[in-house]
């Protein structure tokens, strides 16, 4: 099939560029290709929505029996099928989007790429540029490790088109920032500012890791997803403490490296995460409305106290 061929080429390209991790790639890839076309994660079954209604359709939970949705009429039930398109597991998606920055950034640091932009090959490397390299690579390495060992996803898969969209986002910004921080004409900030930036950033990365541990423990390991009220650590004051720490962590990086490219990335990433945070906050408030024995969601900041 035409779409499978495209996938084949796409995955083969990455096999040869990430040899040590190709085992993970191959396992994911084989699972995707050998399954029949409408494999379960590609199906969305919902109850029909009355015409004209603006409500979102109720998605059938695969763990429940059909009887739970029959609603009195035991003999027949109408179910709406939607093909969600080719799907990719979340770990696969995250792995490829984080791989780009992990490879592109060191390329700008170690290899003489700036000669292609018209600069001489000889350059002086400032300490801050070296620390930035370590910081950046640690960050994305941490993300990949969390993807495989910590995160428990609410959905098993994501549409394949998201691979291209997300990779474009991470890889383009990765190259854009790497270009400026490792530039031969880079102007470093003061030593104190660098230390404050990286120090603050590292603390936030550790806090972010702890937030992920807390989130992981909210869900059971059998992958049933679901939502609970997060609590403990920073979650007591802000709903999406994991995004908060992530944003501040990038702020630390930018304080230390001071590039417009880095700050642009910070603004874009913050707005994306703020959208997610608003949706999650709204969802949790709706779910935990205090009625019928459910707990009521406490008053909290959404993502960035004292602003939102």
């Amino acid at each position, binding site marked *: 099939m035409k779409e499978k061929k495209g996938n084949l080429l796409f995955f083969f390209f990455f096999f040869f560029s990430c040899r040590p991790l190709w085992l993970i790639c191959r396992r994911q890839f084989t699972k995707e290709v050998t399954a029949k076309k409408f494999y379960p994660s590609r199906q969305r079954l919902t109850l029909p929505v009355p015409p004209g209604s603006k409500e979102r359709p109720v998605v059938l939970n695969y763990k429940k029996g059909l009887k739970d949705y029959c609603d009195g009429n035991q003999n027949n039930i109408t179910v709406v099928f939607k093909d969600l398109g080719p799907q990719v597991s979340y770990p696969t998606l995250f792995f490829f989007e984080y791989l780009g920055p992990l490879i592109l950034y060191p390329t700008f640091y170690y290899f003489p790429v700036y000669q292609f932009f018209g600069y001489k090959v000889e350059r002086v490397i400032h300490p801050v540029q070296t620390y930035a390299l370590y910081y950046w690579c640690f960050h994305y390495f941490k993300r990949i490790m969390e993807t495989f060992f910590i995160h428990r996803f609410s959905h098993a898969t994501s549409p394949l088109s998201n691979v291209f969209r997300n990779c474009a986002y991470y890889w383009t910004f990765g190259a854009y920032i790497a270009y*400026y*921080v490792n*530039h031969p*004409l*880079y*102007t470093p900030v003061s030593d104190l500012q660098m230390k404050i930036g990286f120090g603050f950033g590292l603390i936030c990365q550790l806090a972010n890791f702890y937030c992920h541990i807390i989130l992981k423990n909210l869900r059971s390991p059998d992958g049933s997803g679901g939502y609970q009220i997060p609590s403990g650590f920073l979650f007591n004051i802000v709903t999406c403490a994991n995004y908060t720490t992530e944003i501040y962590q990038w702020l630390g990086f930018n304080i230390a*490296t*001071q*590039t*417009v*490219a880095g700050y642009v990335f910070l603004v874009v990433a913050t707005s994306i995460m703020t959208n997610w945070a608003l949706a999650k906050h709204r969802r949790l408030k709706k779910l935990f409305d205090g009625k019928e024995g459910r707990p009521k969601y406490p008053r909290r900041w959404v993502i960035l106290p004292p602003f939102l």
Partner: protein
Amino acid sequence: MATLFAALRRLYLSIYNWTVFIGWFQVLFLALKSLKESGHEHVYNAVEKPLLLAQSAAALEILHGLIGLVRSPVSSTLPQVGSRLYLTWGILWSFPEIRTHILVSSLVISWSITEIIRYSFFGMKEAFGFAPSWHLWLRYSSFLVLYPTGISSEVGLVYFALPYIKGSEKYSVRMPNKWNFSLDYFYLAILALGFYVPGSPHLYRYMLAQRKRALSKSKKE
């Protein structure tokens, strides 16, 4: 209260559309006049003032879409208005050497005819509540010719302006600087040209779909 808002909205949009219509009418008139009397090299100088005014006024349309005054989605008005403002201010106004090119004439004529039809169409609907069917037909058919001529003129002008952009270093920021930032207007112009490659067929297809919808709807009425 709601009817007061509706009436104010209608009044404002009538004034807006007819005013900008007059601006573009001036552009077309002066363009044709100077083309006949002096030649294509002098067209820009003749139309500069009404062109800058009428085209810049289009920025208001983004605002109209954002606050919900009009139905058009911001996602389609923004690239449209953006590319117009880029050509008007970022190329023609910024690089005088390009103003004598013959493509300026084709650009200005394509734009002004399109806008005259468009603004008078909306002006009619807001002020009088209807527009005759030939007007509707013109609004949704003139683009078939004018989009290709207009887009080709836009692409051509950016392309021929490239040497002047590179030579003048205008709007460019070089390293080293405190913020470790650089901007190369020349490469941005090439990137802009790149956007036309997927953007033009997309816009044309969108207009074709709009045409089908609008003309079939009017047949049903």
